[in-house]
């Protein structure tokens, strides 16, 4: 992996920004304004940006996932694979507090971002999501122009100057490998694009706010193979600047794009209740060639799931 890093101010300022939601101007402190400013990253590639420790996610009384511990490493792609109902998407959504939007959802254990517990009472989930972005299974551009789709996030961050927005939009679309295809139709509706283009537009929209981590929830499952390979290429390039966590049903995809793989499965406990469990987390190469667990091997060789 290349080790170029053009991210983020210091860890300290990031965590401060997050934990002081009452200070409204802190929003504009985000490095959005500093696109292109060559602040050096404090995390070396491979160092954990996020850390999950004994994480369980509940919906009401139902414990959907039990006891997950794994690191999310800086500027690496971490894949979460496993059969349906194993809780991998649930874990993904707990990483930027999207689960907060589900009534009755609750997380136990700790999920830290640069050492800060993102579920601590003084943390503002809105700030968390500005640092940890998300791309969804189904491309979901807003019914607005391509330009306005990408500019949406920066505008939330208080960027108003047209020239500055223009730069951010171009950089984000270039980063999402979409600029050349759409530069002449910025005013066209995002919904007029093809499925693969829409998904790359959503990626552009996510990176326009310069998050540090991008969560991807089966981003290619609705795309054809050509569009899929474009998005996969894009993920490689994005990993130079971003930390990526991807949930995928496609094992080949996990093997192709990721550096680390977490294999989840569903287990039935003594009370007869199904929970998602993390079976194994390791280098992708190890998981796919020489997994430690028999269940992992069964799954990736197609004997189960």
């Amino acid at each position: 992996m290349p080790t170029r890093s053009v991210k983020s101010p210091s860890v300290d300022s990031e965590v401060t920004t997050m934990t002081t939601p009452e200070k409204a101007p802190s929003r504009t402190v985000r490095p959005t304004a500093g696109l292109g400013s060559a602040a050096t990253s404090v995390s070396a590639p491979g160092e954990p940006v996020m850390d999950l420790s004994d994480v369980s996610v509940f919906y009401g009384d139902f414990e959907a996932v039990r006891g997950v511990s794994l690191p999310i490493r800086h500027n690496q792609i971490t894949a979460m694979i496993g059969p349906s109902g194993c809780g991998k998407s649930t874990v993904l959504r707990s990483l930027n507090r999207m689960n907060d939007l589900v009534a009755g959802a609750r997380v136990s254990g700790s999920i830290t971002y640069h050492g800060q517990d993102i579920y601590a009472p003084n943390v503002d989930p809105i700030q968390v999501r500005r640092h940890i972005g998300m791309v969804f299974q189904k491309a979901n551009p807003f019914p607005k122009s391509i330009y306005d789709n990408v500019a949406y996030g920066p505008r939330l961050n208080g960027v108003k100057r047209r020239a500055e927005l223009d730069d951010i939009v171009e950089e984000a679309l270039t980063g999402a490998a979409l600029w050349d295809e759409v530069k002449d139709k910025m005013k066209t509706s995002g919904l007029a694009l093809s499925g693969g283009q829409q998904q790359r537009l959503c990626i552009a929209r996510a990176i326009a706010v310069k998050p540090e981590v991008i969560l991807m929830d089966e981003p290619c499952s609705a795309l054809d193979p050509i569009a899929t390979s474009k998005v996969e290429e894009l993920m490689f390039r994005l990993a130079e600047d971003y930390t990526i966590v991807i949930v995928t049903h496609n094992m080949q995809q996990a093997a192709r794009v990721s550096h680390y793989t977490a294999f989840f499965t569903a287990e039935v406990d003594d009370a007869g209740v199904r929970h998602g469990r993390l079976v194994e987390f390791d280098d992708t190469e190890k998981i796919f060639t020489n997994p430690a667990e028999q269940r992992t091997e069964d799954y990736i060789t197609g004997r189960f799931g």
Partner: protein
Amino acid sequence: MEFPLTQLDRAPASDVTTPGRGRTLDRVFGGASYGAGLLVLGVLALILLSTTWEALPAFQHSGFDFIFGQRWAPNNPDLPLFGTLTFLYGTAVSSLLALLIAVPVSIGIALFLTELAPRWLRVPAVTVIDLLAAVPSVVFGLVGILVIAPAALPLYQWIHDLVVNVPVLGSVFGPAVNGNTFATAGVILAVMVIPIITSISREVFDTVPVADKQAAYALGATRWEMIKGAVFPHSFAGLVGAAMLGLGRAMGETIAVTLVIGGSTQIAANLFASGNSMAAVIAQQWGEASGLHTSALIGIGVVLFAMTVLVNYSARVIVRRAEIRMKGATA
């Protein structure tokens, strides 16, 4: 592997050309619903034709003055005058005012119910709002004339005193003599159309894809930013539709307006002046009218009908344009 089906079980190939059992029923049902559709068009055409026919003598008598004339003197012995512009004005002012008040309130209620209200509060709140739609309009009118009008008069006077020296506002919020005014009519109409606009807006907001809301939240949007960025763009067409239905209702509302609008024939920029509306005039004068006068009252109805159609059509054009702009040429 051979599928275990004998020749006896299998229908003969010739079967495909013989009619099946459901076919007659299908035709009956198809014909019935086709007929129902045509019936609506037929009734509409019949209403339009018969009323226009009845109104024709008045139209011929007044010509374009029927719409552009300001003098309404049906009992003028030499030459009765049927200029309805004042009533057109009254209808337009009172219903637009109603819309101006009702749309923001309704959208607010609908947003509260779909995005903010705790689950336990939603059902009772919706029930209460729907109940509001079931209150007979004469009750609204009586509340308006007995409660609102007297109570509002000091308020009108206070507002007038406040802005009396401001150029435009001074005449829009002019002197108030009594509480039966355009403003009172607008307020009453607003209360009457809030339930319908709310209930449609609520349904429109419910159709906003969860994916869009999540996309906004995932970009770090607050709830209001999410509503602005994801809910409103998706709902624009539906909200225009809801407002137009409300406007249609307000324009056609008769008895409540009759009671509170004051019944004077004048075009005044002053919202605190009395006026009259098209529907109210018909209700007030129908009993004592005869001959050409009756014909003219029916003519007012025809014009009102035409106005509602026009408003609805323009709304459709607006909605269509907005949809094309937002969803792209492919949609």
